[in-house]
C-alpha cells in the first residue's frame, strides 16, 4: 500500500498549490553575470483565467521573467511552481527566418494544434490569410496569427511579451479588446508585457510592476486611485517613470 502511494503521489512541489492557482513564483532571482542581478526576490502568483499586466522600464527584466517562467532561463535562487505544463510563450521578437516562403497555413500546422487552428484564426480575424506569406503580414496581423496558434493549443497560461510593439495606437486598443475576449471565451490566464499604462489599467485583472525587484502587485483600480500613482503617471497616455518610494 505504501509503495502504491509513493508511485501515484503527485510531485511534492505542486501538492500544496491550490487547484485554482496556475503558477506561483517565490523569491525568484536571476543573474547573467556574477553579482549582477537582473531579477531579485520576485514573488507573485497567477490564478486560472487571470489577466496580469507586467509593466516596467526597458531593461527591468520583464522578458527575463517570462523566459524564466517557461524554462528558457534558469534562476540562481527561488522557484517557479507550476500547476500546468501547458504554457505557451509568444516572444517579443520571433526568431523566424522570414526569407523562407513560409505561409500562414504552414506556420499554423507546424506550431498549432492539428486541425484545430482554423477556428481560432477566424476568432482573431485572420481566417482569410491562410495562403499569405508570413513575411508579408503586418506586425498586428502576425501577432494575431501567433495568438491563434497559441489558442489552438488550449494553453492554461499564455505569456505575451510586448505583443503591441510595432502596432499603432488604434491597433493597440483593438488588441487589448481581443485579449479581454480571449480571457472571457477561452479562459487561459494571461501574462502580458506592456508599456501602455492607460490600457493596462483598463484591461488587466492585476498589475505587476517590475523595476530590478518586484515592486508591487495589485489590482489596477487600487493602483490607479493611489495618490502616488496619480502623481507619477498623471491621467494621460504618456511614457512613465516609476519611483519606488511608495507602498500599494
Amino acid at each position, binding site marked *: 500500500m505504501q509503495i502504491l502511494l509513493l508511485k501515484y503521489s503527485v510531485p511534492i512541489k505542486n501538492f500544496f498549490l491550490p487547484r485554482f492557482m496556475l503558477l506561483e513564483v517565490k523569491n525568484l532571482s536571476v543573474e547573467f553575470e556574477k553579482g549582477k542581478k537582473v531579477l531579485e526576490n520576485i514573488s507573485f502568483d497567477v490564478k486560472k483565467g487571470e489577466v496580469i499586466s507586467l509593466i516596467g522600464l526597458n531593461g527591468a527584466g520583464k522578458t527575463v521573467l517570462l523566459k524564466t517562467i517557461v524554462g528558457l532561463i534558469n534562476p540562481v535562487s527561488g522557484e517557479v511552481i507550476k500547476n500546468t505544463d501547458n*504554457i505557451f*510563450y509568444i516572444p517579443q521578437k520571433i*526568431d523566424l*527566418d522570414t526569407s*523562407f*516562403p*513560409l505561409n500562414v497555413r*504552414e506556420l499554423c500546422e*507546424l*506550431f498549432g494544434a492539428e486541425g484545430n487552428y482554423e477556428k481560432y484564426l477566424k476568432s482573431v480575424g485572420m481566417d482569410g490569410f491562410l495562403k499569405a506569406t508570413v513575411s508579408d503580414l503586418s506586425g498586428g496581423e502576425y501577432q494575431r496569427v501567433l495568438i491563434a496558434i497559441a489558442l489552438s493549443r488550449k494553453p492554461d497560461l499564455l505569456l505575451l511579451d510586448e505583443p503591441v510593439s510595432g502596432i499603432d495606437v488604434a491597433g493597440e486598443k483593438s488588441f487589448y479588446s481581443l485579449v479581454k475576449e480571449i480571457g472571457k471565451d477561452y479562459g487561459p490566464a494571461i501574462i502580458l508585457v506592456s508599456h501602455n499604462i492607460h490600457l493596462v489599467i483598463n484591461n488587466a485583472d492585476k498589475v505587476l510592476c517590475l523595476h530590478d525587484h518586484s515592486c508591487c502587485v495589485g489590482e489596477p483600480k487600487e493602483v490607479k486611485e493611489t495618490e502616488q500613482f496619480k502623481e507619477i503617471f498623471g491621467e494621460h497616455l504618456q511614457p512613465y517613470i516609476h519611483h519606488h518610494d511608495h507602498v500599494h
Partner: protein
Amino acid sequence: MTMFIEYLQYPFFVRALIVGGVIGLILSWMSGYVVMRREVVLTHALSHIGLFGIALAILMSYPVTLTLLAACLAGAFLISRLQSRKLFNNDSLLEIFAQLSLALAIVIIAFFPGYRINIEQFLFGDILGISRMDVWVSLALLVVVGVMILLFHRTFLRISLSDLLSHALVRRKKLWNGILMILLALMIALAIRIVGVLLVAAFVTIPSNTAKILAKSIRGSFILSACLGVLATFAGLWTSVIFDLPTGATIVLVMGLFWLAAVVVRR
C-alpha cells in the same frame, strides 16, 4: 545523347552517380535546416574537422573513411556541448574549430617529410575514385539519415525555424538539436569525398538558398532544394567527364548557375 549513355558503361561513373545522387538528395534537403538555423559556418567547421580526421588516419594508418566519419561525429558532439554553454558567439566558436582543425591537419601532414600524400583529393574531392565500399557506406547512410528525416522532419523543421516557438512543443530540444547535428556531420563526412573539404559547404548553402526564392511554400522549397541538388550533381558529373574538368568544382559551378538563374528570374 550517346555520349551520356556511353559513360554509364563505366563502373566508376555509375558509382559516382549513386554516391553523388545520395549526397545531392540528402544534403540539399538538410541544407534547408542549416540555412534556417543560420549555421552555414557549421558546415565549414565540420569539413575542416574532417580534414583533421583524414590527416589523423594517415598518421595512424587507420581506414580513411571511418576515421573521417568518427572525427566529424566527435567534432559535432564537442561543438554541440560548447554551444549549449553559451560562452561564445556561434560563428566565433565554429571558426575556432575550423581553424584549429586545419592547423592540426597541416602540422600532422608536415610530420611526413618526403611522404607523397595526395591531399588534393580531400581538399577538392575525388568522386570518380569512389570505391565499392564507399557506395555501400553511402547507401547505408541514405537509409539511416533518410529514415530519420522522413520520421522527424516536422520536429527538425520546428527546432530549425524558431527556437523560441518550438520550446513549448518540442521536449528535449537539446537532444533533437544534437541528433540533427550528428546527421549533418555524417553527410558532410561523405560529401568530403565528392567535392572536398573546401567546397562541401556549397551543398548546404546553395540549393536551399536557390529553392527558397523560387518556391511558394516551405514544403516546396525543401523538395525543390533536393531536386536541384541531385540535378546539379548529375549535370556536374557528366559535364566534368566530357570536358575533363575537376568534378567537385564543376558540380558547385552548376549549383551556382541554378542560383544565378533563380536570382534573375525572381527579379
